């Protein structure tokens, strides 16, 4: 192909062009196999309740990490309060099921929409903030919401929590919640891919790279940012609703735990922020790391220390995530691990 023709090559390509070619193709093929494995997992003979439970947790985390990636990864806004949306989804679903007597799916929808609405209402003012201010404002809102949910006893049940009905038939509940989470996580991947090929996706990346320039180019940055925030709320809200019905119990100090925000950010960072598959794979990497470390350091009460140490190591050595190593763009060596320090130290 001559240079001239290369220049003419259209930017948009169809879904299946060279999809399974080269190293990227191999990885995509492996990922597809992995998804197929996940899809048939409950029918495999070794799929005990424990594994189903663990995978459901991982998939819910993956879904939330994918959601966080919209605002934190693509748009570049360090949102630290996404657990608020998880809590909104959980409470929305729980209250709709108990107070309104609705069945699960409409309740889930109500919970997720409530989370989205909250994200839009809060997002319009706080997305004007930049950097540290935005980050702390989101932490503050999430903490405040947790406290309000905890003390508004007449509406939320306060410290007594909300008890939800069990899934019926109960012997299929493990499978049901597993598939709900898988659907949510895969749906999140498709949503990411869908948006990235649209103007919205380009707007997000443009905002991350230079918000003023994006504004000058005629991008409605407010709309794009609020959409990113609302969509991340949608993912976390749905995850919260599923989680609430799965555990059949909603308690403020449980569903507004700041650790959940940390976990989703860490999953996204481990996999690679601003990539489609990063947060999904990161959620698995995160759980494997945690499980291995808890296994080798069997001190249950030091769980948080282990989590913190992982965060510190990741931030110092691989803040761009492990996706570059997996996809072969970078080789694992002392040099590549020290690259981050060489770039950013003083």
């Amino acid at each position, binding site marked *: 192909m001559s240079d001239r023709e290369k220049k003419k090559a259209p930017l948009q390509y169809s879904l299946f062009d060279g999809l399974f070619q080269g190293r990227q193709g191999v990885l995509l093929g492996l990922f597809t196999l992995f998804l197929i494995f996940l899809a048939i997992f409950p029918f495999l003979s070794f799929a005990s309740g424990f594994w189903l439970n663990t995978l459901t947790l991982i998939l819910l985390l993956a879904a939330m990490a994918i959601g966080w990636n919209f605002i*934190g990864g693509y748009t570049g806004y*360090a949102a*630290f309060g996404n657990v608020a949306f998880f809590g909104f989804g959980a409470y929305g679903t729980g209250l709709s099921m108990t107070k309104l007597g609705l069945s699960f799916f409409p309740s889930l929808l109500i919970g997720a929409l409530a989370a989205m609405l909250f994200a839009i209402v809060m997002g319009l*003012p*706080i997305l*004007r*903030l*930049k*950097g*540290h*201010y935005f*980050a*702390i*404002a989101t*932490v*503050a*809102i999430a*903490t*405040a919401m947790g*406290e*309000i949910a905890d*003390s508004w006893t007449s509406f939320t049940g306060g410290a007594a929590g909300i008890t939800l009905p069990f899934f019926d038939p109960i012997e299929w509940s493990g499978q049901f919640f597993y598939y709900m989470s898988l659907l949510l996580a895969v749906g999140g991947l498709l949503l990411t891919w869908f948006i990235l090929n649209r103007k919205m996706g380009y707007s997000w990346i443009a905002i991350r790279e230079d918000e003023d320039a994006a504004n000058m180019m005629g991008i409605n940055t407010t709309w794009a940012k609020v959409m990113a925030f609302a969509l991340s709320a949608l993912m976390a809200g749905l995850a919260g609703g599923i989680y609430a019905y799965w555990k059949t119990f909603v308690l403020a100090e449980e569903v507004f735990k700041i650790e959940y925000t*940390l976990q989703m*950010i*860490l999953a996204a*960072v481990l996999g690679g*922020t601003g990539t489609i598959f990063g947060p999904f794979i990161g959620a698995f990497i995160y759980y494997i790391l945690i499980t291995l470390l808890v296994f080798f350091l069997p*001190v249950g*009460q*030091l*769980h*948080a*220390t282990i*989590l*913190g*140490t992982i*965060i*510190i190591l990741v*931030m*110092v050595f691989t*803040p761009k995530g492990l996706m570059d190593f997996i996809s072969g763009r970078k080789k694992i060596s002392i040099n590549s691990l020290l690259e*981050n*320090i060489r*770039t*950013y*130290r*003083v």
Partner: protein
Amino acid sequence: MESLQFTQGIVNAILLSGTLALVAIGFSIVWGILNIINLAHGAFLMVGAYITYWLFTLYGIDPFLSLPISMAIMFVVGYLVQRYLINMVIRAPLLVTFLLTFALEIVIINLATFFWKGDLRSVTPDYAGLGFSLGNVQVPYVRLAAFFISLILTGLLHVFMTYTKTGNAIRATGMDIDAARLQGVRIPQTYALTYALGTALAAGAGTLISISFPIDPTMGGAYTLRAFVICVLGGLGSIPGVMMGSVVFAFIEVFSGIWFPSLKDAIALLVLVLVLIVRPSGIAGKAFYH
């Protein structure tokens, strides 16, 4: 009774504002000079409080005498943390340093809970309960002393920053890092020194808090958020601004505690969000210490 509660509230707020100013000053210089939000600030404060507690419980050292000890220990700890950990990634995007200090906080709190248990503890010297009355209003001696010590430490910091060569080097680094480097300021050491000053002040505040209030390993997080709110209220990196912000915040906190006890933190946080919305860059919005 209402008016008594009101006047007592005013006295409490003024006494509280001194300690809060001390907490916020350390946070403010680290933010202003290093441009990082030190989320581990409250955890260092907690360790300072525990140093005082153990020195008092094990060796019977008076809490006010242990103030320099806890500050010195945490100064060294802070210096090492900044020099050999945070300095490694200090120029990375916001998310990295934010998560790094967050992780530090988690680790410190978890280790403290593991070794010292999560119980509430208090430092109880003989004079702990003493105080004097102004009419019906109670003023405990320890809180009054804490108030004045906070003011003295804040003043000393101001003198250090304004009149010493090292203090000027720190300020210069905050204003223009390249120009400071050209003038021969050693940036890594200066950063470490600034952070160490921040943690030492946090530890000092922790010591003073431990004399008046019970302590536990999770006490710090609330102070980190308060420090942040105060910095936003008063403007980043100016000592008078931080003092003013502390007074405003102390009044909000004390009176929302009287009127809406269960929503105390929520109200403080909503005030923060409100201020940020009205003035998105903070009230003063200066990017360095001066």
